Structure formats: C-alpha cells, structure tokens
C-alpha cells in the first residue's frame, strides 16, 4: 500500500473550512489517549484542559491576555506566509520591539506625560519593523535565505536584550537580578476596564485582524500578495515586484510583532526583564496555520492556543499533570493542522503497489 496525492483543481472549499476543526478534534482525541496512558481519567482531564478555564470569568480574561501577543504576531506572519516569505524570526522582532519601546521609560524613568505611551508604541513598532528589515533587505538584495537569517536574528536579539537587562539597563536597586526599573504609571498600557488584566493590546489585536483582513481581501495590495505568493512568475507579468513586496510584508509583520512586544512589556510586565521571550513568536506560527492564514481565523486560533496554556495550568493544579502536557498538545495540534491542510489541496488515495513499479 502506498499513499498517493492527487492535486485538486483550486482546492476543496469544504476542507478549507473543515480542516482546522478536524485537526482540533484529532488533537483532543490524541490528548485523551495521552491522559489515559498517564493513568488519568481522560474525560475529566480534557474537561479541566478545555472547559474549566472557559467557565470562570477570570480565566477567560487570562486567555484574552495570553492570546493578545499570539494574535498580533500571527496576523503579520500570515501576510508573510501568504506572499511566500518565510519570516520565522517573529520572536526576535517581538523582543526588539519590546526593547525599543521600553527604552523611553527605562532611560527617562521620571518622565510622566500622556505622550509617553503613544511614543512607546510607535517605538515598539519601529523596532520590530527595523529588525525584520534585516532579513528582508538581505533577501531582496542578495537572495539570502530568509528562513535562516530571520531565525539566527532571534538568538542575537535574545542575547542582546539579556545583556541589556543584566548590564546597562539593570535596576541598580534590583539586588543584581536582571531587569529594568519598574515603569511609572504613564508608561503602563491601561486596562480595557478597571480592575481587569486585559490591556489595550487586546483591542490592537482585534483592530489589526480586521484591518489586515480588509487589506487582504478587498484591496489591490491583497491581490498582489496572493498572486506573488501563488506564482512569482505570474506576479511579474502583472507588473508586481516580488522584492518590494518582500520588504513590505517583513516590515508589516515586524511592526505587528514589535507592537505585541511593547504591549506585553508595558501592559503585563511593566518593566523590561530577561523573561520576555516566552516563545510567542514561534507559537504564533501554530496560530497562523491553525487560523488558515486568515486574520479572522487567527483571532479564533489565538484563543484556542491561549486556552491550551491556561488549561495546562489548571491541569497542573487539579490533576498533577506537569506543564509538559501543554507543550505536547501544541505540538500535536500543529501536526494535525498541517496534515489536515493536505486535504485541502490534494485528494489522498491509497494505492496498492503495482508490480511494475520497481523504482517506487
């Protein structure tokens, strides 16, 4: 027996909608088996994971907080991926964005003004975009592989921010622990409603999702992205420049990752420390695929992935399942999403091995 793929003309619209749900279902099933193997009641385990966090308003808030950076980053990545540009260095752009934005409250710690916050956000976006510009220009000018350069830059960014918060930007009163001074109030991103942990970043994520969705589906730019992503040759005939688009999508996704970074720094942490890099830039790749590279889909996908984090904590507390389970879930989810995506573009057929196929 052998698996053979047959290309569908134009892809299956049924599976385009269905595939993320099939993937989710498969993940939940696989998760149930995993819990059973661990000797836990699978129904109760899955309940703690996926339902318990939704039942409690505070947990729901935490899901929103967690989903915010994931969604912001994933939207930018979706635009990149659609245009055939593989930016996998969002983690670095997120960090540098956070660092650029934090520069204002760290260096001018006393400065209190309504100008501080907008400036920080702009700096954050600029920082992320600038950092994304490096792999973009290298690709456009020299044809350098952007997957590798953007990935390498993640590690450079991690080391650089680490050096800053342990060195020049360290709080002198922090007992030698890495981390800057706490920001003053005017540098803290306000909550959506008082007493809530959900900060303005969540609103940015929603606005970005709608705006990018509009650009992708209703404008010439969206058309350009789609054409060049599907077939660079066809794009050239249509008069589009692949190089210019590479720069554009990297700047856009870098700016969004940077916005995610500064929102996290100023809305959640309220200082720059060495724990900013929690892998959101990589997790966002899962989100982008789970959302089928559609900004509105990503909005939902971000919430699903955030649920696996929050549910993971709930499971740790009430089941004694370690936090590794959450990671296994995320890996499985991405696997199933990718596998199910195949169904959209290909018909899968099991073919019995033909006797003449000596080479097969």
């Amino acid at each position, binding site marked *: 027996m052998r698996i053979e793929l047959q290309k569908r003309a134009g892809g299956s619209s049924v599976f385009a909608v269905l595939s993320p749900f099939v993937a989710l279902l498969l993940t939940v099933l696989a998760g149930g088996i995993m819990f059973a193997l661990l000797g836990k009641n699978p129904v109760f385990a899955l309940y703690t994971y996926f339902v318990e966090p939704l039942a409690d308003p505070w947990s729901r808030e935490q899901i929103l907080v967690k989903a915010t950076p994931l969604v912001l980053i994933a939207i930018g990545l979706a635009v990149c991926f659609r245009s055939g540009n593989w930016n996998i260095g969002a983690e670095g752009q997120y960090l540098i964005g956070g660092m650029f934005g934090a520069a204002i409250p760290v260096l001018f710690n006393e400065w209190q003004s309504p100008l501080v916050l907008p400036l920080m956000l702009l700096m954050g976006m600029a920082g992320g975009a600038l950092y994304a510009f490096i792999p973009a220009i*290298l690709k456009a000018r020299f044809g350098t592989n952007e997957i590798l350069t953007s990935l390498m830059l993640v590690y450079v960014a991690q080391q*650089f921010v680490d050096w800053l918060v342990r060195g020049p930007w360290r709080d002198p009163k922090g007992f030698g622990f890495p981390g800057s001074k706490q920001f003053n109030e005017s540098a803290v991103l306000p909550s959506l409603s008082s007493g809530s942990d959900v900060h303005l970043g969540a609103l940015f994520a929603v606005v970005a999702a709608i705006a990018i969705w509009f650009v992708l589906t209703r404008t010439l730019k969206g058309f350009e992205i789609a054409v060049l992503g599907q077939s660079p040759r066809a794009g050239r005939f249509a008069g589009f420049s692949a190089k210019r688009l590479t720069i554009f999508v990297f700047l856009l996704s870098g700016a969004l990752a940077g916005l995610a970074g500064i929102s996290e720094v100023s809305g959640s942490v309220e200082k720059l420390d060495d724990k900013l890099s929690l892998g959101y830039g990589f997790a966002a790749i899962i989100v982008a695929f789970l959302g089928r590279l559609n900004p509105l889909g990503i909005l939902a996908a971000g919430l699903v992935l955030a649920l696996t984090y929050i549910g993971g904590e709930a499971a740790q507390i009430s089941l004694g399942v370690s936090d590794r389970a959450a*990671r296994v879930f995320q890996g499985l989810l991405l696997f199933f999403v990718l596998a199910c995506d195949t169904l959209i573009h290909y018909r899968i057929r099991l073919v019995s091995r033909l006797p003449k196929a000596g080479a097969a």
Partner: protein
Amino acid sequence: MDVWISIFISICAASTPLLLAATGELVVERSGVLNLGVEGMMIIGAVAGFSAAQATGNPYAGAVVAVFAGAVFSLLFAFLTLTLVANQVATGLALTILGLGLSGMIGEHFVGQPGIRMEALVLGLDAIFYISIALIGAVSWFLFRTRAGLMLRSVGDSHTSAHALGLNVIRIRYLAVMFGGACAGLGGAHLSLVYVPQWVEGMTAGRGWIALALVVFASWRPARLLVGAYLFGAVTIAQFHAQAVGVAIPPQFLTSLPYLATIIVLVLIARNRRLTMINTPAALGQPFVPDR
C-alpha cells in the same frame, strides 16, 4: 594531566553534540529538505538514551536506542512533509515543540537519578566523540565520492530533474531525514550519557538550533562543519576561562557570535554566485509531488 589537554577535552565534549546533530542536518539539507526539528530530535535522543541506559545498565545500549529513537521520531516529520507535502518550516517547529514536551513527560521519573556514564576510551575521550569524527569523514566521502551521494545531492539540487532521471526522490529524502534524526538522537545521547550523565528537562538548551546555524555557517561542506562546531565549542569553554582569570567579556556577546557569523556567511555565499551554485542545495525547503 596537562592543562591544555584537559581544556581540549572539555572543548571536544562541548562540540560533539553540536557536530553530530549538524552532520545529520547537513545530509538532510543536501537532499533538499529543511528540518527545523533538530532540537526536538536531540532531546528525544537524550531521554531515550538515558532511559535505555538505566534500564539495561549499559550506556552503549542507551546510545543505540537513542539513534533509533531519533530516527523514528524524524519519521513523523518525513511522513508529513514528504508524503503529505506539509510545509517543512512549520512541521519542523512542530517536531521541536512536541519533542520538548514529550521528552519531559517520558523523563519525569528519571529526574534526580544519577545516570550511567559512558567512560572514556582513549585519550580521555568517549566512543561518541570518535563516532562523530569518523562520521563527518564518512559523510564527506559519501557525498562527494559515491554514486549514492551524487544521487542525494542531485535530488537536493533539482528534484524535478532527479525525478526525470528515474531517481526515487521521496525515498531518498526519507532516508536522509532518518539519518538526520539518528545523528541528532546520538548527539542528544552524548548530553545525557557523557556530558552530564543525568536526565534534566530541556537539557539540550538550544543546541539543536545552533546545529542548524552551523550547517549554514559551513555552507553545507562537511570539513567546514567540523571547524565551525569546534570553534563554537571553544568559545563556550573559553568564556568561563576568561572569567576565572578575571577577563570580563559579556558572555552574551560571545554567545551571539556564531549566529552573526552565520548571517554573514549566508550573505557571502549568496553574493558569490559560484560558491552558491556549488554548495547550496537549490531545492532546499521546496515541496515535491511526483506527477503521475
């Protein structure tokens, strides 16, 4: 023991896991596949090697199991990207995430247990070290001196022409990916059986990603890979010596050097057309679906 010899041995220990994982990835990339799951395969190798050594009492059995575990784990990637033509970048990341989580779960009961050290054979160095050196030679010979190596490289350069010539692109890539998994698994086993004979969650600590960087840094040439891995190992060890004699260089600066160097190498090979044509697998990361 002479101090310099002992420092050299420390450098060998620090370089071996990197070299092994990178050797495997070099072959994978030469076949035109980009597997970003090296970190995941390494950590699976580390936990599998440790648990097998604990179960049998024999570190060599552990290493063998690690090789198999890495190869089997990489099949997951191969099936998705080669058979189902899923995106290689995303699948590789999934492999890393899954590997880190899964290894933590498997290893939960081994935490806090002293492992069984694979003792040094000759000159204070262990079997896995010698294998890593032999392997890089063997891979170099295989790629450039054998017919099978030529086939593998041609698949990596253009799968369509290789297919037209009657090569089974998918099968060759399957084998390459599994070889990569096996090497990464052995590299992981070096960590849990030689480096620090114990199991600790996440003990690969980003070494898989460094291995990926090294492959590019070496511009897909085995000899340069050897140099790159040992340079990196030397820097790792040197930072502590620098501290102990009172020289303070920010360690973060040293740590980011290999990544920066890799970017520069990438730019250089991309600018120099001839170098690029010779070394870069042209079909790297591109999906292949045989027409029927």
